[in-house]
């Protein structure tokens, strides 16, 4: 789902000049864009060697770290924005990571594949797990170890004491604000600690 258009729509949520921590920053594309277009500063966190290399190559600060070990490296409220783009579903300890995100950043922005998108529902209705563009993996061979829905996240955010300040879906490079749980393949949430 990390298509350019989606990334830009998520990037628009980040206030100009923000100090940003991008958890699971991939090849650093989003951070580089935020640096160039919104004068943001900050760091990306990555585990994969190839991505760390790609970030260094494009001049993005990257720290090689396993997110499952937490964010002990970062003090409370030390960032304006903490991003988790397409990262949440790969982490075992979703709730802890969400709390850590809210602890370290003033604003948290999370995006993940929405399992309740209608084609996924159809797949499940026919008795099979979905294999789609947003969820391209077979059930037995997927890095997505936590699949949730737009609606599920609202519940989790509430139980973690997070205040959702904006939320919408993304579908084919467009923002979906009407019935996102049904009509969007990607869920996007912006939240703050209550």
């Amino acid at each position, binding site marked *: 789902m990390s298509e350019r258009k989606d990334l830009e729509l998520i990037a628009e949520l980040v206030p100009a000049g923000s100090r940003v921590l991008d958890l699971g920053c991939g090849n650093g594309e989003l951070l580089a864009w935020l640096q160039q277009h919104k004068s943001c500063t900050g760091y990306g966190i990555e585990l994969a060697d190839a991505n*760390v*290399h790609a970030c*260094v190559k494009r001049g993005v600060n*990257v*720290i*090689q*770290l396993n997110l499952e070990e937490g964010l002990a*490296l*970062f003090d409370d409220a030390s960032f304006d924005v903490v991003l988790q783009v397409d990262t949440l579903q790969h982490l075992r300890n979703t709730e802890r990571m969400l709390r850590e995100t809210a602890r370290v950043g003033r604003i948290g922005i999370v995006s993940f594949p929405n399992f309740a998108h209608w084609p996924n529902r159809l797949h499940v209705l026919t008795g099979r797990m979905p294999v789609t563009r947003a969820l391209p993996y077979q059930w037995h061979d997927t890095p997505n170890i936590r699949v949730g829905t737009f609606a599920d996240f609202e519940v989790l955010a509430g139980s973690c004491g997070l205040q959702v300040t904006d939320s919408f879906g993304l579908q084919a490079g467009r923002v979906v604000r009407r019935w996102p749980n049904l009509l969007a393949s990607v869920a996007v949430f912006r939240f703050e600690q209550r």
Partner: protein
Amino acid sequence: MGSIGLVTPQQMHFSEPLPLKSGAALADYALVFETYGTLNADKSNAVLVCHALNASHHVAGRHEDGSTGWWDNLVGPGKPLDTERFFVIGVNNPGSCFGSTGPTHLNPATGNPYGADFPVVTVEDWVDAQVRLVHRLGIEQLAAVVGGSLGGMQALDWTLRHPTLLRHCVAVATAPNLSAQNIAFNEVARRAIVTDPDFHGGHYLAQATLPKRGLRVARMIGHITYLSDDAMEAKFGRELKALDGRLGYTTQDIEFQIESYLRHQGDKFSEYFDANTYLLITRALDYFDPALAHGGSLARAFATARQNRFLLVSFTTDWRFSPARSREIVKALVDNRIDVSYAEIEAPHGHDAFLLDDPRYHAVMRAYFDRIGEQR
């Protein structure tokens, strides 16, 4: 990728005494150094390479005697630290036994070799000496200072005390200070040397002898700590020295290959390394602790380095300078909002990995130096 080819060390003499952290001063000294590549017109492409415990100014290329530089796999034309782009300086620190003024040289005050009278030098003293050399070479600001292990400590110290004199710091397999365990290893090595009957209180040269036995043991201990358990297991395991696989039931002769290897390393080392230098350099390692002057806060120590940019690299199996120690430095930098990238390379070789050419490690180094080159 080529080699630099034949290189010749140069020497620079300094008549102004170097004030040392201990309060003493080093009078009338010389530094030996090598340079590779060409200094550009605006003198903005210079990179200083700091050496670790048993290395020298001979970073890359080869000498007439055939010896290859200790970081030749990293530094050279087309290599990660590309000498076609950068002007690279390798310098031998004072107190060493490879050419710069050290304990084997004559003490101008007595006319005899310094021996144990050579003043105790610290990482900070070395950096101050390097600053003078760089200044003499007409360079106002280095593009980067690079080092691994003890060399990494020097690279860090540049940003702590001379932050305007460099732009980038590349510190590999290093630590913000030594742990008790690390100091302990150094102390065992020092005791091996000092208790050698040939040590003569450090004035062995005046007695026309060398404490080789002590040096051998010191090197053996050091060598064990530079390798990972896995690397040692893979290389030697329980392999026996005897080809027929029979045990000799002897307590003093070599039975296992690892014993043979360590003794060989110790023998080799004791032939070329000076015992007083070993004492001095291990002490410099022990003393380095930039947080000490800031109430133990490494973050406060690095507040000076806000204009510098950093690359830190550690290796997963390095238990002497573990990734956790590098992460402490990363945290101090992040706390100061300083630009830093950090790579934790999964390598099986232990501390020695920083000298090897692991492709992921070298790819990150290359990418970072390429960025430095483009920013000029």
